[in-house]
């Protein structure tokens, strides 16, 4: 396949009728704690008549996240002639809202669910259909397989896929149908290592309506999986999912409502993220919508909710509009939980307690999450002055540790993360190209274990045991975080940013002490928990951008669309990046 593509490139290259564009991105970083990466990505786009070709080369030794590659990372050949489109190579396709298929290549968290294969599409104004066949080799990180590592995935599954998607427009109405089957080689925890064969079948139906007053979309999916045992496919599990979206448009504001209800499997609190021993449920190439708002500010994203794609019910309501030409507002409320509450039996084994309603509620035994965010934006002086002030209140029951219930007592323990955050952005642009910008985020974070004990209708305990300790080892109720960045820029050439990221206390589970860099010493910030860096961005030409960062970056949880990954801190080092377009 690669030879075929490369031959095509060679043939096209000798022709004068081709159009060739591309880009490169080189990133190099090294910290005092020994963290080092060096990666270059080169994308080339080649067009010849109705053919286009995309090749992505990677040279990494090692990359910031993931495994080293030296050579072709991705390639695709496309033929596009009127309503017919054919693609061969690495495919990233989305059907509907991603309930059946949403293959992504998210390098920020090293998540790649692309399919290497072939797809044939027919698109007309009123009808479209797509057939796809190929193989998806997907890597994930899990503590349930050997070799868990923050930087490299340790669990790999391969899926042979084929499927069909059909969409038909009837005026303002749209109806769609999808079918996708995957044959999975699923590695299990045995010695010597072995795999089992799983067949996953996904069917979905969707309906959409668009008008000037409102839009509506609903998609329903049914999944069924089979396990190959004794020369036959035996039914393993069934599941279903529902996604709904309603947008309402008014003169001064609009409302966006989303609802999710995923019921592929109700796994107990210990097993719910165990992708090794529990299989045949939601698939890594699905990536459906989540009931979590993607925040623009740094501190809120660090405590973002990790969605359980097997079992989650939730909604998100968003109101946005303007009071006047200069003042805009945004308000969001989102909430989700698991479909059942969970209790422990007399042997301290988790069992499903009761099925909850199809609307989210805040029962701690169902590991709920809720998030409120509101912001006001003010613009003035011909849009040269920009001020944004927000407020966020988030509560997430991260894990359920104990819930024993008798006729006369209950003992409930869960781990909790809750935070109140105030982000403030300010920028002013002078008429000579100079501008100043500041971002200030303040956060009051509570993390710990909530203990609730009730006996004979009397509450014995109902309090949080914080994980935050002061220097003397005394427990503190909350941690104060601040993230401040100040930028001076001269458009369109350069910008200079100073960023300070501070926490008030040590997080007790973090053992490694951060390294205080000379910049922090110079600024007189000598607390143990702070990360200061400076970044200089320079546009060498309008299509060539260079950035140099020196200092430290706080690691932690990085969540993208409900999928989270721990990113290691970067202490006292340099990061250089250069991107060019040619």
């Amino acid at each position: 396949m690669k030879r075929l593509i490369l031959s095509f490139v060679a043939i096209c290259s000798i022709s004068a009728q081709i159009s060739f564009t591309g880009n490169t991105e080189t990133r190099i970083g090294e910290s005092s704690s020994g963290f080092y990466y060096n990666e270059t990505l080169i994308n080339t786009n080649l067009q010849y008549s109705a053919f286009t070709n995309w090749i992505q080369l990677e040279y990494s030794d090692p990359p910031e996240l993931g495994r080293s590659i030296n050579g072709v990372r991705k390639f695709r050949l496309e033929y596009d002639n009127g309503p017919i489109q054919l693609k061969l190579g690495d495919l990233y396709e989305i059907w509907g809202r991603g309930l059946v298929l949403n293959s992504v290549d998210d390098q920020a968290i090293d998540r790649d669910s692309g399919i290497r294969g072939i797809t044939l599409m027919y698109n007309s104004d009123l009808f479209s259909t797509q057939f796809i066949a190929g193989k998806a080799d997907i890597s994930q990180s899990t503590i349930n397989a050997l070799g868990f590592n923050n930087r490299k995935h340790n669990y790999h599954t391969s899926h042979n896929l084929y499927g069909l998607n059909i969409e038909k427009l009837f005026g303002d109405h749209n109806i769609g149908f999808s079918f996708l089957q995957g044959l999975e080689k699923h590695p299990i925890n045995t010695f010597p290592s072995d795999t089992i064969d799983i067949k996953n079948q996904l069917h979905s139906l969707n309906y959409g309506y668009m008008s000037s007053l409102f839009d509506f979309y609903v998609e329903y999916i049914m999944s069924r999986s089979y396990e190959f045992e004794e020369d036959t496919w035996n039914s393993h599990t069934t599941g279903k999912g529902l996604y709904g979206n309603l947008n309402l448009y008014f003169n001064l504001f609009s409302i966006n409502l989303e609802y999710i209800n995923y019921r592929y499997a109700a796994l107990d609190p210990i097993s719910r993220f165990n992708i090794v021993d529990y299989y045949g449920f939601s698939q890594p190439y699905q990536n459906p919508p989540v009931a979590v708002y993607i925040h623009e500010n740094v501190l809120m994203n660090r405590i973002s909710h990790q969605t359980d794609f097997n079992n989650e019910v939730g909604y998100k309501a968003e109101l946005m509009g303007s009071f006047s030409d200069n003042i805009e507002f945004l308000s969001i409320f989102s909430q989700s939980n698991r479909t059942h509450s969970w209790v422990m039996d007399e042997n301290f084994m988790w069992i499903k307690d009761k099925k909850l309603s199809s609307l989210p509620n805040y029962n701690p035994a169902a590991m709920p999450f809720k998030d409120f965010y509101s912001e006001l934006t003010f613009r003035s002086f011909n849009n040269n002055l920009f001020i944004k002030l927000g407020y966020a209140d988030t509560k997430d029951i991260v894990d359920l540790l104990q819930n024993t219930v008798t006729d006369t007592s209950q003992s409930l323990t869960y781990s909790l993360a809750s935070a109140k955050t105030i982000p403030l952005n300010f920028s002013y642009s002078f008429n000579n190209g100079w501008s100043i910008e500041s971002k200030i985020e303040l956060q009051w974070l509570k993390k710990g274990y909530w203990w609730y004990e009730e006996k004979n209708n009397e509450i014995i305990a109902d309090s949080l045991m914080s994980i935050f300790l002061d220097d003397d080892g005394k427990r503190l109720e909350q941690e104060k975080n601040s993230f401040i960045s100040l930028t001076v820029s001269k458009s369109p050439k350069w910008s200079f940013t100073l960023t300070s990221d501070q926490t008030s206390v040590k997080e007790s589970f973090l053992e490694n002490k951060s390294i205080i860099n000379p910049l922090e010493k110079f600024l007189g910030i000598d607390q143990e928990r702070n990360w200061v860096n400076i970044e200089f961005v320079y546009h060498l030409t309008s299509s060539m951008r260079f950035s140099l960062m020196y200092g430290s970056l706080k690691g932690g949880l990085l969540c993208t669309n409900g999928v989270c990954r721990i990113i290691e801190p970067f202490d006292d080092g340099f990061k250089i990046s250069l991107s060019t377009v040619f």
Partner: protein
Amino acid sequence: MKSTLYFIIPLLIVSFLFADKKRDMMLPDLTIKLINGKKTRLSTLLEDGPILVEFWATWCAPCKKEMIFLEEYHKKYSDRGFRVLAISTDSPKSMSKIKSYIRAKKHTFLVGLDPNQEVAKKMNAMVMPTVLLVDKDRKVSWFHQGFVPGDEKEIEAQIIKLLDANNQMDSN
């Protein structure tokens, strides 16, 4: 490591030498899905005149700041055949609110959808926001990555430059 450097260093030199030759960058006649559910071709969008393409997402704060100015330029230069096309790269996880965002902000420019970033890759938009000024022949006359306050003045200067060049060609 050494072999990697042998490859990367010449590549960077070549990139540097050719980076500013993007004026010859010719875009393929891409199919673009619009927010109203219809599909169109880049060549169709360019029939009336040049367009400015911006790649953005609902979670990208600088993109949204830039869009305020793009709306202004879309209205200001529409009588000269100029239009703005803002292509959202929101994935299905946030794409439901694209239209409500555009409606709430009262933006009138064209909005495209590129949830799997296929169009963005073909237009070499690696960071957000990225802005491309595309003339009637699908040639990229100006390319810019990122947005800091003040960039809007450079964007407007480039729009005027392209429109003036087009006028001159038409009169010739």
